[in-house]
């Protein structure tokens, strides 16, 4: 069975991901909050960057995972892949919300507003709403195959938003910070680059760990449901 092999693989390697994430994030927080110096313009406020940017980036990583898993599901129709999609969507929503909240908190002192209707912010909000729609669509469908397929379709078409989020700062005049890593090179002070990189990779791996755990959980729920169904049918429940 593909599913059991896959779940076995997840169980075997998940702890390494958890461990790496812990180490990287601890190191990132230490260097970011303690050893690095405050920003010339923004002062101590800049430290929120070490949470905001990793969260925002991981949200996009999570959506990309959702996108790939959705294609995989449509191709193979494996129930466990749908569980991975479901897990990735939930986590993507979590990190998106994190990015939105930390961004808003950062925005209040820098732009003097919680929210501005700027292309990057809005395209990010679109992703948020797409994910909400995705999870909502799942709750409104009963049939398992239908649920998996329809939500995969939504995830795939929603992927067009990702390039917009990433390149919006280039395409439109924007309030938001431009890309710090682009084909024009890196534009971050080396002092800040270390915690920034640690946190980015750390939160990314944290996501992988959470995805592995959550996928297993959803798969077990799915098994439990089937088991419950069998018992119900045999009149034992």
């Amino acid at each position, binding site marked *: 069975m593909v599913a059991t092999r896959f779940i076995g693989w997840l169980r075997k390697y998940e702890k390494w991901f958890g461990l790496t994430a812990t180490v990287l994030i601890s190191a990132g927080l230490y260097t970011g909050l303690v050893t690095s110096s405050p920003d010339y313009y923004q002062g101590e406020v800049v430290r929120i960057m070490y949470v905001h940017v990793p969260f925002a980036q991981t949200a996009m990583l999570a959506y990309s995972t959702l996108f790939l898993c959705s294609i995989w599901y449509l191709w193979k129709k494996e129930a466990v892949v749908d569980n991975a999609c479901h897990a990735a969507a939930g986590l993507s929503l979590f990190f998106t919300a994190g990015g939105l909240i930390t961004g808003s908190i950062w925005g209040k002192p820098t732009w003097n507003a919680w929210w501005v209707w700027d292309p990057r912010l809005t395209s990010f909000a679109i992703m948020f709403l797409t994910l909400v729609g995705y999870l909502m669509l799942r709750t409104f469908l009963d049939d398992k*195959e239908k649920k998996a397929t329809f939500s995969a379709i939504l995830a795939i078409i929603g992927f067009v938003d990702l390039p917009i989020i990433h390149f919006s700062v280039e395409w439109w005049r924007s309030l938001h910070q431009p890309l710090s890593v682009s084909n024009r090179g890196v534009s971050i002070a080396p002092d800040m680059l270390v915690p920034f990189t640690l946190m980015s990779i750390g939160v990314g791996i944290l996501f992988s760990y959470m995805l592995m755990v959550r996928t297993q959980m959803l798969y077990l729920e799915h098994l439990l*449901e*089937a088991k419950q*169904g*069998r018992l*119900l*049918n045999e009149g034992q429940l």
Partner: protein
Amino acid sequence: MNAILGTSLSKSFQHYQVLKEVSISVQAGECYALFGPNGAGKTTLLRIFATLHRPSSGSFEIMGMDGKRDRVKVRDVIYLIGHGSYLYDDLSVKENIQFAIGIRGWNPTEAEIKKALDQVGIGRFARLRSRYLSAGMKKRLSIAKALLIRPKVLFLDEGYASLDERGVGMMNECIRSFTQAGSAVLMTTHDRGPTADVAHRVGVLNRSVLTEISVKDMVTADALF
């Protein structure tokens, strides 16, 4: 030759397992009648064969083609008369037939359509919008479509429901014309009387156990389940 072959088919909906390892086979040229209590999963089984549901486990073949992999080819040879009437309310009876057959890539002539409609007794309603048909008339229209499509495998869910007695007779004639032409018919029903006239084999599905009985036993038995 096995026209329909299901091997240990299971199907669960959310928390509820409807079918558990049900196996069934129907030969070409045969009419198989499926009895069973309300909620036994007869409709579900038919819908699996009609490629409307995917089985949770197990496999099935239609005319020797794998029902899971060759869905498109399977669809070439099957037709389901189920609860839905597959009609567009604002098209006339004739237009509905033209569309349903035309979209399969075949254009029946006016005469052929008229013949099929007359055969099921609704020829004089050909130009009525299907919105105004009664339940029984819609059922007849579905049969007319089957007569034009001439599928190799015909699924009938509650074949006699909402038909009056003449309709039942006409339905049996159609079933006979199908089996004589070598098609397989799998139908679910609650009516023993009319079934006895056409069924070659009879099965009773109860709690996922499919018991086969003879047609004679079906007629005489006190209770089927």
